[in-house]
């Protein structure tokens, strides 16, 4: 055909279709990525001594202060699905060094789903509710 050369490979609407499909795909992937962790109701138990001080969901960022008096204070922070000891009044600071626990990394951690502050007797346990 004569107009073979002149015709563009795709029309404007074709490009529009491609754009819409790609947009939906990328939006969908992002939605799956960001919505899935928040729908799972993972939470953490914070113990002081032998009893549960507080249970906190991992889907909202917050800082929990555990004040036991006599300048024994711990701050546990929840941020973006991770929980960790933000600071502690203890001398060795090992609990702070133990870093963050998340639903994804706990299997690689030495203490798995725990953060432990022995001097202050504060422990944090991540509880997974995924497979409910």
């Amino acid at each position, binding site marked *: *055909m004569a*107009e*073979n050369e*002149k*015709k*563009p*490979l*795709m*029309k*404007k*609407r*074709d490009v529009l*279709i*491609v754009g819409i*499909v*790609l947009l*939906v*795909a*990328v939006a*969908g*992937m992002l939605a*799956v990525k960001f919505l899935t962790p928040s729908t799972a109701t993972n939470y953490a138990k914070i113990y002081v001594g032998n009893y549960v001080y507080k249970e906190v969901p991992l889907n909202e960022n917050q800082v929990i202060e555990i004040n036991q008096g006599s300048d024994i204070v711990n701050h546990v922070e929840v941020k973006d699905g991770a929980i960790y000891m933000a600071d502690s009044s203890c001398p060795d600071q090992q609990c702070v060094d133990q870093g963050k626990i998340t639903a994804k990394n706990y299997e690689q951690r030495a203490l798995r789903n725990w953060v432990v502050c022995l001097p202050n007797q504060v422990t944090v346990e991540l509880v997974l509710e995924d497979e409910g």
Partner: protein
Amino acid sequence: MKQTSSRLTTQRMTRLALLAAAAVVLGYMDGILSAAMLLPTGVKLGLANTVLLYSIYLLGPGYSVLLMILKVVLTGFMSGNLASAFLYSMGGGALSLVMMLLVKALGRGSISIVGVSVVGAVFHNIGQLLVAALILRTPALMFYIFILMIAAVITGTLTGIAGRQIVRVLKIPGSADPFREEGGGNK
């Protein structure tokens, strides 16, 4: 002449048989090629779709539905796993064909064969995954659709361009210009 009468003449039957055979063979080659190119599971070139595009543009909706059903049934027999393979490809084939016919009709020439092909590829995947999610009862499978959609855009564009050339070269003598709706405007 145009396919005004829906009677199944010998010529039409032969044409349909040839196209069905081509679609089955291309579909089979598709599987081998996709495996050879190490494409991820579920991603296929969709070569058989060029045949369907051909029939949509040159033979009309009726033929295309028949062709799709023939292809699905024959492929189902070949795979040796009639029940599930049949359901998967029927879900993909039916949804894909309906959407392609719809887009072509609604596009009224402002959407070219490439756009129709992309829509077909995307909805083929959606249809198959819907059936799979229903059969396996795992709605979580649906997240895979977004990856497949991106792949479908690429493969759909390629098969659409191939389909356009095939429709041009293998035009049925005496039939109307398959691209008449798209007009001569070259921009």
